[in-house]
């Protein structure tokens, strides 16, 4: 059954990346249809932490996060309160002198990209975050970082797309991407541009895309206002995120606008098994308690799991991968941060413009290009 409606672009997935793409494509004048298997902002977007954070695992990652963070900063004045944008900044916490060396290295890297950051002595770190354990070496404060509430951000981006004429259909699972169309059950919907923004499921829809689910656990505490004031991340987080081991945990906590403390993080490669793994959860909490002993006195009200859309080189796939077929997925744990930048790059590529940052590193064809 061919659908009567005609769209310029179909975005598959109403997570934060799909929502951001719907906004930029519709802003360019395209008639956009967004399809989501469940509901807007309910997948990885809802399961994650919600940080706007600069990451320098690779120069490309830093370029994309910095570009995106700048776009978020521009939006901040118009975001509704429901998005809970809190410019709390990030402190990268160093346990010992070797990690302090890494902190200084990080500071130099950021400075080279005109990103302000501040090296913290042990005393200064303790002053800023008294609930961190004593004996830490220091840290790096990145004031420009922020946290927000991702489902509300996705809803807002979709609202902007709707104002540009986009249509959003929920409970509408795309079964197949075919040439110039998608199939939803027996219905075939055509469009010139089909954007696979299905997050961790992008690879299921398009097996050619090297995206795998990378499971994570999170826990949230009862309200404890002021317990921490910045997003806190251990320096070892980058290693945990970088190395594709079967299981790793790293200390990462966030103050939420409710006064709750959101506690992460874990990474596992276990396919689509979403069961709460009590051992991994306990390891993750223990890691957090090692940095913040006072967490012992807080109650956990809820724990959950989710799947990051992971790629081998830790960079998302943004661009065209077949006739009419485009992708914006594979953002691993950085989808909230990089959604805006990814959506601008995608819209630029679709329109034939030159993106503000080099797009080649994110090309879905990059492995083929590298091999050639």
């Amino acid at each position, binding site marked *: 059954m061919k659908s009567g409606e005609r769209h310029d672009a179909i975005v598959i997935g109403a997570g934060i990346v799909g929502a951001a793409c719907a906004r930029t494509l519709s802003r360019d004048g395209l008639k956009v249809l967004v399809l989501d298997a469940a509901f807007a902002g309910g997948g990885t977007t809802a399961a994650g932490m919600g940080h706007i954070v600069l990451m320098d695992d690779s120069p490309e990652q830093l370029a994309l996060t910095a570009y995106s963070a700048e776009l978020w900063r521009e939006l901040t004045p118009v975001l509704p309160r429901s998005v809970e944008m809190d410019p709390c900044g990030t402190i990268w916490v160093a346990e010992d002198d070797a990690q302090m060396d890494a902190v200084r290295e990080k500071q130099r890297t950021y400075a080279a990209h005109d990103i302000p950051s501040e090296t913290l002595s042990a005393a200064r770190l303790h002053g800023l975050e008294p609930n961190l354990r004593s004996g830490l070496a220091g840290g790096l404060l990145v004031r420009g970082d922020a946290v927000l509430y991702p489902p509300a951000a996705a809803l807002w981006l979709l609202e902007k797309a709707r104002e540009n004429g986009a249509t959003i259909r929920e409970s509408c699972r795309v079964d197949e991407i075919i040439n110039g169309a998608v199939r939803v059950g027996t219905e075939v919907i055509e469009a010139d541009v089909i954007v696979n923004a299905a997050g961790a499921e992008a690879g299921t829809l398009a097996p050619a895309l090297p995206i795998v689910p990378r499971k994570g656990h999170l826990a949230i505490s*009862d*309200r*404890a206002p002021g317990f921490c004031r910045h997003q806190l991340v251990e320096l070892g987080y980058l290693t945990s995120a970088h190395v594709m081991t079967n299981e790793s945990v790293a200390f990462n906590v966030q103050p939420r606008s*409710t006064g709750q403390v959101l506690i992460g993080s874990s990474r596992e490669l276990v396919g689509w098994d979403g069961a709460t793994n009590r051992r991994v959860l306990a390891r993750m909490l223990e890691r957090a308690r090692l940095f913040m002993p006072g967490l012992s*006195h807080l*109650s956990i009200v809820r724990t959950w799991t989710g799947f990051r859309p992971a790629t081998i080189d830790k960079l998302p796939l943004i661009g065209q991968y077949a006739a009419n077929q485009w992708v914006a997925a594979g953002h691993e744990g950085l989808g909230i941060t990089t959604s805006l930048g990814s959506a601008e790059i995608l819209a630029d590529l679709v329109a034939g413009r030159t993106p503000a940052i080099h797009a080649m590193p994110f090309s879905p064809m990059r492995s083929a290009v590298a091999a050639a």
Partner: protein
Amino acid sequence: MNTADVTITIDGRAVTVVRGISVAAALINDGMHTFRSSVTATSRGPLCGMGVCYECRLEIDEVAHRRACLVTVTDGQRINTGQRPRQ
């Protein structure tokens, strides 16, 4: 005070109450209605009386969010509702 009583402090004020009663009972008997302030700052007190609703949460002996209906009074217990200034 007879041996059947214990003394607790409610928001810094010493109050003698019957041994064995719940913290919730002690506060209500002391004339308090408001146990906590909701997230939009409205007054709340016990609803279910049996640990389900979490409306009677308050700070007991420096531990936040304890359910007053499930905790028995003990001598020297310090209860803080945040509703009156501590003395």
